[in-house]
């Protein structure tokens, strides 16, 4: 898979905003990943060319940031926040329940490739705990039943 024209145009627009073009690397990775699902070695090579840096420079950045993936992921990312405020309100109990219902553990993907489950650090929703995010969408004030309704609704 290679970067589409659309992504390349988007990257060019981002580059114009920064005094040095490398400033647009994180925006570029977001754009590429939104289209391709993860940043493969090939994608890193293409990006490296666009940015005139080495592929290893791109991969280093990918591995530093939790939200960039260097391998294929489930269709949906489900992250349960397990930091202290959420844990105080039962986040880890919720996580166990979800693991049992999905038959996987945090860090794994369901056999049908539908859901990758993970735990996550504080997401800035501590008053509405426990909570999880599916991609960019927050779901707050959950219990196991509400959480499973949300997960069951994912294609």
């Amino acid at each position, binding site marked *: 898979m290679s970067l589409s024209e659309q992504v390349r145009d988007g990257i060019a627009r981002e580059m114009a905003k920064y005094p040095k073009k490398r400033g647009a690397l994180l*925006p570029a990775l977001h754009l590429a990943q939104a289209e391709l699902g993860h940043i493969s070695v090939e994608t890193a090579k293409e990006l490296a060319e666009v940015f005139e840096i080495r592929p290893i420079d791109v991969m280093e950045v990918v591995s530093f*940031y939790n939200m960039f993936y260097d391998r294929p992921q489930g269709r949906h990312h489900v992250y349960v926040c397990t930091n202290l405020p959420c844990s105080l309100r039962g986040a880890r109990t919720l996580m166990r329940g979800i693991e049992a219902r999905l038959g996987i553990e945090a860090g794994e993907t369901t056999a049908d490739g539908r859901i990758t489950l993970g735990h996550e650090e*504080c997401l800035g929703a*501590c008053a509405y705990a426990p909570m999880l995010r599916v991609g960019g969408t927050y779901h707050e004030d959950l219990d196991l039943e509400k959480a499973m309704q949300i997960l069951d609704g994912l294609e």
Partner: protein
Amino acid sequence: MLTVPYVTSYLSEHFGDDAFRTLEGYRARGGYQAAKKALTEMSPEDVVELVKTAGLQGRGGAGFSTGLKWSFMPKETDKPKYLACNADESEPGSFKDRILLERGPHQMLEGILIAAWATGAEKTFVYVRGEYAYPARCLQQAIDEAEAAGILGANVMGTGFRHDVVLMRGAGAYICGEETGLLESLEGKKGQPRKKPPFPAQYGAFGMPTTVNNVETFCHVPHILTRGADWFRGFGTEKSPGTTIFGVSGHVVRPGLYELPLGTRLDEIVFEHAGGVPDGRKVKGVIPGGMSMPVLPASMLDVPMANESLRERKTMLGTGGIMVMDETTCMVRAACVITYFFRDESCGQCTQCREGTGWMNRIVERIERGAGTHEDLEVLLDVCGKMEGQTICAFADAAAWPVQGLLRHFREDFEEHVRRQKCPFPDSFEL
């Protein structure tokens, strides 16, 4: 759903009103008048002086004087100058910047414009944590509106002053909230903090003079411009003026946001505003300012929430994220969660931090499992001591403080685990 603060003051009074999020609604409430006044009636030096006199302190955690920080920006320079707005908000227990972005993005942009005038900055990079997809959309919409209306861009409100705002999204790394980690990340690199000096005002984003301020810090600025330093000093304490938006979480009846003057007593926030602990249980401990700040025991909650008084109790205001733990809470489990976080988020540049956070986490987990020894407690304190003040950035201190706090006030919890060789708190939150 993120709800508007239960108690509001000047920052959040219009947050219940959807129109306030739009340029039209913001202007209808007097929006952008303060920036207009600064740019047309005041010199940059006047603005810096005013913010200094008002006594505004940064709301990102360190509490540094905002006016003073602005005055560090070089005046005679041919380099472009920048601002960076820190919207990385990743300190566990903190969620105030999120509502400021979602419900009042123009208020923040106006504060940025005034700061830009005061420092001579031509561009602001707003660094929003990657997980804040919705707050980022709200802000981008406001930026687009302001550009279209000529409030941002080549000729700000017809004054000839140029200022652009660029929103960048992070990608899930707590350390990018540290200001030089943020600058590295802006440059498209790993967010590893820089050695200081040079400080950002000399060598900041892309090597140019840069001032970094927190979202909330910018939000106070238009109000100071409009209503003056004396008015601002009417809120809060002599040394810590103004309000802040406290976030209350954990074991309380009404977790949420509360905009209150600095210096409001912690027990008033926990019991009167947030309703105390549910079901008649008692408070055991409260973390007063985000997870990096040392815990306070129930006997010390009469403290005013301002740095000068919190420091006397060996803790700090931090981000104002208040976490309440009730009497069922096992403080060793709390230590497990806290140390896991810091172990996971250390950027790994400094040995003391990389190794120390791992050591702390392994020791407290061992104690929680019932395999700890009395010697472990001494080792734990020793590791904390070695992490403090030794590293490139304050992350290592921030990792050591909460553990020291737990041992200072709840050592008995740790001892009891060691004596019984198991966790003595069956009703505590699950790990």
